[in-house]
């Protein structure tokens, strides 16, 4: 498939990041197209997580974080002074490797985002919770224990609950940072299928150090190595005919 030339939802121009004196990312530029799955692949410590944490300004909390370059979300500078950071984080959700849930019921975990956005009517919340759990493929499995403690869920179910929680506020972009790192192969397939489904109405960025997983889930892939973006292109191209020798070595398992 070709990279479709729509208006990019995210544009990254010459992004460099430092933690103190350590340079983590070195002048990256690429664009994320809407309603596609963009995978970011690369060996451990190549800067993948640092990069995606810039996309919803999570690095703001990291001491000694410095950056140069720019990130445009639908054309506006995400790091401009007037940017409403909370609004950005609502539009750009994130799912992490470990499914960390709030110490509330399953229902409240999903309703949380909607509540803090000012929705309090219970019928409205019920609708949001059901619809979101349906989308994340969890509804049939947990309908009967909705008000129970999420601790009783399997780790894969908890991860899908985290995805439901992120989806409840209708994000435009959802970032997955190694979401299957803790999961068994069966749960992993469920998450991968979910990611493929979600791109119908959401843009997805998928960080993984599992090459084959990137090949399975993504439309477009970028290979990061030592803080640089070595190659960016359609997943088909990256996995059948990569142009850079380092990408070739990484995808064939000789590097990393």
């Amino acid at each position, binding site marked *: 498939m070709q990279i479709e030339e729509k208006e990019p939802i995210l544009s990254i121009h010459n992004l460099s990041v430092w933690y103190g004196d350590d340079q983590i990312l070195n002048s990256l530029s690429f664009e994320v197209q809407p309603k596609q799955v963009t995978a970011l692949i690369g060996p451990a410590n190549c800067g993948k997580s640092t990069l995606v944490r810039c996309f919803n300004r999570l690095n703001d909390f990291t001491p000694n974080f410095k950056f140069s370059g720019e990130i445009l979300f639908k054309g506006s500078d995400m790091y401009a002074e007037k940017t409403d950071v909370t609004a950005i984080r609502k539009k750009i959700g994130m799912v992490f490797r470990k499914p960390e849930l709030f110490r509330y019921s399953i229902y409240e975990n999903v309703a949380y985002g909607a509540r803090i956005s000012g929705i309090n009517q219970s019928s409205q919340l019920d609708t949001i919770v059901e619809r979101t759990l349906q989308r994340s493929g969890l509804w049939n499995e947990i309908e009967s224990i909705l008000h129970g403690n999420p601790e009783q869920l399997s780790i894969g179910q908890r991860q899908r609950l985290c995805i439901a929680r992120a989806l409840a506020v209708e994000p435009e972009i959802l970032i997955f940072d190694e979401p299957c790192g803790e999961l068994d192969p069966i749960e992993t397939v469920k998450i991968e299928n979910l990611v493929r489904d979600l791109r119908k109405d959401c843009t997805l960025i998928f960080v993984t150090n599992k*090459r*084959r997983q990137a*090949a399975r889930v993504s439309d477009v892939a970028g290979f990061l190595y030592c803080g640089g973006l070595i190659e960016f292109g359609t997943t088909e191209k990256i*996995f*059948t*005919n*990569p142009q850079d020798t380092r*990408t*070739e070595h990484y*995808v*064939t398992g000789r590097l990393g």
Partner: protein
Amino acid sequence: MLENEIKGLQHKILEMAGLAEQMLRQAIESILTRDSELAEIVVATDDRIDLFENEIESSCIQLIALHQPVAVELRFLTTAMKVNHSIERIADKSVAIAKRSIELSELPPVKPFVDLPYVAQVIQAMVKDAIDAFVNRNAERALEIRERDNEVDEIYERMLHELLTILSEHPRLIESGISLLLLFRHMERIGDLAANIGEEVYYLVKGDVIRHS
């Protein structure tokens, strides 16, 4: 390691190609010298080619299943499967030539072989170069083969014409004529198969499909 497995597989393909080249050489020699015994040897060698073909195909499938290759390794294995098939076809065509050669040795000659030794030389060189290009991952050489195939096609057309003229004047030669016609056809097909290998090698090296272009 997949890398070592691939080296082993390539070696096997090379062995098979060597055998197919030998069959082609012997088949052609058997026509020129009217040596039906040599032709029989070619026919008998075909079983070995079939064994090679099955063995190579199984290895490719096994390596794809077990290693789930990507990038150049994936391209190598898909190319190897096609090259394997083309070599088997070349051997098949050599057997067909050998069978015609046995027939022709018992029939009166239509005319002296003028173009045949030349075409034989060209297609043998094409097959050899196609295999060399595969082994050495040489895209340029692979492309050249395609161009030489055009020359073979032209000579084939010319021979066809010439044969028709002779046969219309000498109907008693029809049986030898048809045999010779089929023989030319098999040789022309070998040229096509060498060109196909060239196209697959181009894909292996460059990642671009040039077939049908």
